[in-house]
C-alpha cells in the first residue's frame, strides 16, 4: 500500500505545482524569485546529497555540472525559440532541460571515472578543479558569450517546472535510497572495503551517484538559466559549489528532509540578512564553523528521518 502512495505523492505534488503556477503572477515578484531559488537550491542540494551524503564522495564541483546544464539548455532553447510560434513550444523547455541534464551527466561520467579512486580531501579538491576548468573553458568559448555571459535566454521556467522537478528529484532519490539497490550507496560510504567484500561494485556505484547527481544539477542549471534569462561563468564558480555543500552539511549529510530544510533556510537567510549585507557572508561563514564544531552531524542529523518522526507522533511511547 505504501508502495503506491509514493507515486501518488509525486502526482499530487506535480498537480499542486501546476495549480500554483496559474496564480504565480499574484505573488510579489521579489518573494516569487526567492521561492524559485529555493526550488532550484533544493534540487541542487538533494542531488549533491546523493553524492556526498549517501555515496560518501566529497564533491566540490556541483556548480560545474550546474553550469553545463545551464549553458546547454540555454543553447538549445535559444536555437529552437528563434523559430517559435508553433504549438510545440511547450516542449522546448523540457527538451532543453533534459539535454542540459544529459550533458552534465556525461561530464559526471568523465569526471567520475578517473577521480573516484581518490578519497576525502583529494577528491574534494580535484572536483573543485574540474568545476573551475569547466568555468574557464566556458569563459573562452565565444559562441556561449565567453566572460560576458549568455543573454536573451527565453524566460520559460515557472513555478510549475521548478517544483515539478523538485518533486521528481525528491521522489527519485528517496526511492533509490530506500531500495535494496540503493543500500549499495550507503555501504560504499560506510566502508568501501567491506562493501566490496559483500559483492558491491564500488566503482560502479560511485560513478552512478556522480552521474545521477550531475544530471539533476544540470537540470537545476537549466531551470536557473530559464528563470533569470542571463547567465555568466562567474555565477558558477566554486563559491556556488561550496554554498551547495554547506546546505548538505548543515542539513545533515544523508538526510533528505534535513537537506531540504537547510536549502530553504539558507536561501532565505541571506535575503533576511540583506539589511546588513556587508556582514552577511561573515555571519554565514562563522555559522558554518560553529556548527561544524558544535554539531558536525548537521542541524538535523543523519538519523533525522521523516519516517521516524511520523512514527513518534503516531505511536505514543509505551508506558512502562
Amino acid at each position, binding site marked *: 500500500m505504501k*508502495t503506491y502512495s*509514493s*507515486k501518488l505523492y509525486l502526482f499530487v505534488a506535480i498537480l499542486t505545482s501546476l495549480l500554483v503556477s496559474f496564480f504565480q503572477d499574484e505573488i510579489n515578484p521579489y518573494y516569487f524569485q526567492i521561492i524559485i531559488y529555493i526550488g532550484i537550491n533544493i534540487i541542487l542540494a538533494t542531488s549533491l546529497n546523493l553524492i556526498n551524503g549517501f555515496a560518501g564522495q566529497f564533491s566540490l564541483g556541483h556548480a560545474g555540472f550546474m553550469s553545463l546544464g545551464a549553458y546547454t539548455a540555454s543553447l538549445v532553447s535559444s536555437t529552437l525559440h528563434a523559430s517559435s510560434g508553433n504549438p510545440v513550444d511547450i516542449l522546448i523547455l523540457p527538451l532543453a532541460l533534459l539535454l542540459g541534464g544529459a550533458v552534465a551527466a556525461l561530464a559526471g561520467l568523465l569526471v567520475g571515472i578517473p577521480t573516484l579512486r581518490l578519497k576525502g580531501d583529494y577528491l574534494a579538491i580535484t572536483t573543485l578543479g574540474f568545476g573551475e576548468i569547466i568555468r574557464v573553458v566556458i569563459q573562452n568559448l565565444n559562441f556561449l558569450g565567453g566572460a560576458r555571459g549568455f543573454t536573451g535566454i527565453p524566460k520559460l521556467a515557472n513555478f510549475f517546472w521548478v517544483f515539478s522537478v523538485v518533486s521528481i528529484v525528491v521522489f*527519485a532519490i528517496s*526511492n*533509490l535510497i530506500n*531500495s*535494496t*539497490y*540503493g*543500500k*549499495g550507496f*550507503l*555501504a560504499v*560510504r*560506510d*566502508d568501501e*572495503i*567491506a*562493501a*566490496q*567484500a*559483500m*559483492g*558491491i*561494485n*564500488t566503482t560502479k556505484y560511485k560513478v*552512478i551517484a556522480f552521474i545521477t547527481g550531475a544530471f539533476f544539477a544540470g537540470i537545476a542549471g537549466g531551470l536557473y538559466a530559464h528563470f533569470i534569462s542571463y547567465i555568466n561563468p562567474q555565477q558558477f564558480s566554486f563559491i556556488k559549489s561550496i554554498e551547495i555543500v554547506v546546505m548538505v552539511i548543515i542539513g545533515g549529510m*544523508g538526510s533528505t528532509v534535513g537537506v531540504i530544510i537547510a536549502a530553504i533556510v539558507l536561501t532565505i537567510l541571506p535575503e533576511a540578512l540583506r539589511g546588513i549585507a556587508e556582514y552577511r557572508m561573515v555571519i554565514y561563514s562563522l555559522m558554518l564553523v560553529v556548527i561544524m564544531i558544535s554539531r558536525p552531524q548537521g542541524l538535523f542529523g*543523519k538519523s533525522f528521518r521523516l519516517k521516524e518522526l511520523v512514527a513518534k507522533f503516531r505511536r505514543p511511547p509505551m508506558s512502562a
Partner: protein
Amino acid sequence: MNILELKECCMKFGGLTAVSELNVEIGSTDLVGMIGPNGAGKTTVFNMITGIYQPTSGSVVFDRQEINDFRPYEIVAAGIARTFQNIRLFPNLTVFENVQVSLNKSLKHGFSHSILQLKNFHKEEHSVRETIMEILTIFKLEGVKDELATSLPYGDQRRVEIVRAIATKPKLLLLDEPAAGMNPTEKVDLMRLIKSVKEQFNIAILLIEHDMKVVMGICERIFVLDYGVKIAEGTPGQIKNNPKVIEAYLGEVVS
C-alpha cells in the same frame, strides 16, 4: 571435489615475501583452520583469495576457475565471502540493512527500476525482505534488526558479520579471527555457530584463529603458516604434536 586450490601462490611486497609458494586444497564441505604466529601472512592469504591483493605468482582456483585477477566484488559473485579481523560492519546501517547490502548482488532489478519503482520492483523488494528476515531468524538476530549494527555487543557484532557474509550465499566462507576479543562463553557459542553454519548451508569454511581451543575444537584439518611458508598440515591431533609447529610458536626449545 576441491572448491578452492591455491597453487604455488606467492605474495611479495617490494623485497618482502609475505607468502611463498603456498599450496592449499579445500574440499567443498571442509572446515579448515589456518594458524600461525603474528605476521605469518595469514590475513595476506585471505586478501589474496578475496582479490584485495593479486598474487605475485601462482594461481588461485575457485570452483575450477582461476580467479587471480577477479575484482573483490566478482569474487563474491563467484561464491567466496569473508569476515574481517577488525570488524567492518557498516556503522550507520541497521542490522537489517547490513544484511540487505549482501543481497544487492543477486538483485534482478537495478538503478532505473529502483528509482522509478517499475514493475516487479515491489515484488522483489518484498522477497528480499523475507530472505533477510529468514536469515536473521536463523541466527536469532530478528529482535535487533532495527538497531545500528555497531551498537550491538561485541560478540553479536561478530555474529552479524558472519550473517552478512552468509547472506551473499557463498560456497566458501573465510573467517578472519572470529573469536578475537570474545569471552569464553561467547567462544563456545561461536564454535557451535560455525559448526551449524557449515552443516545448515553445506559450505566450506576456512578460518584464521589464534585461540587453539576454538581451532582444535572445530577444525577437521589445520595448516600452519610461519614467515609465509606452510610448515605443517594435518588433523588437530597431528598439529598439536608437530615439533615444527611448537618451535614456530615458542621459538627454539630451550632445555
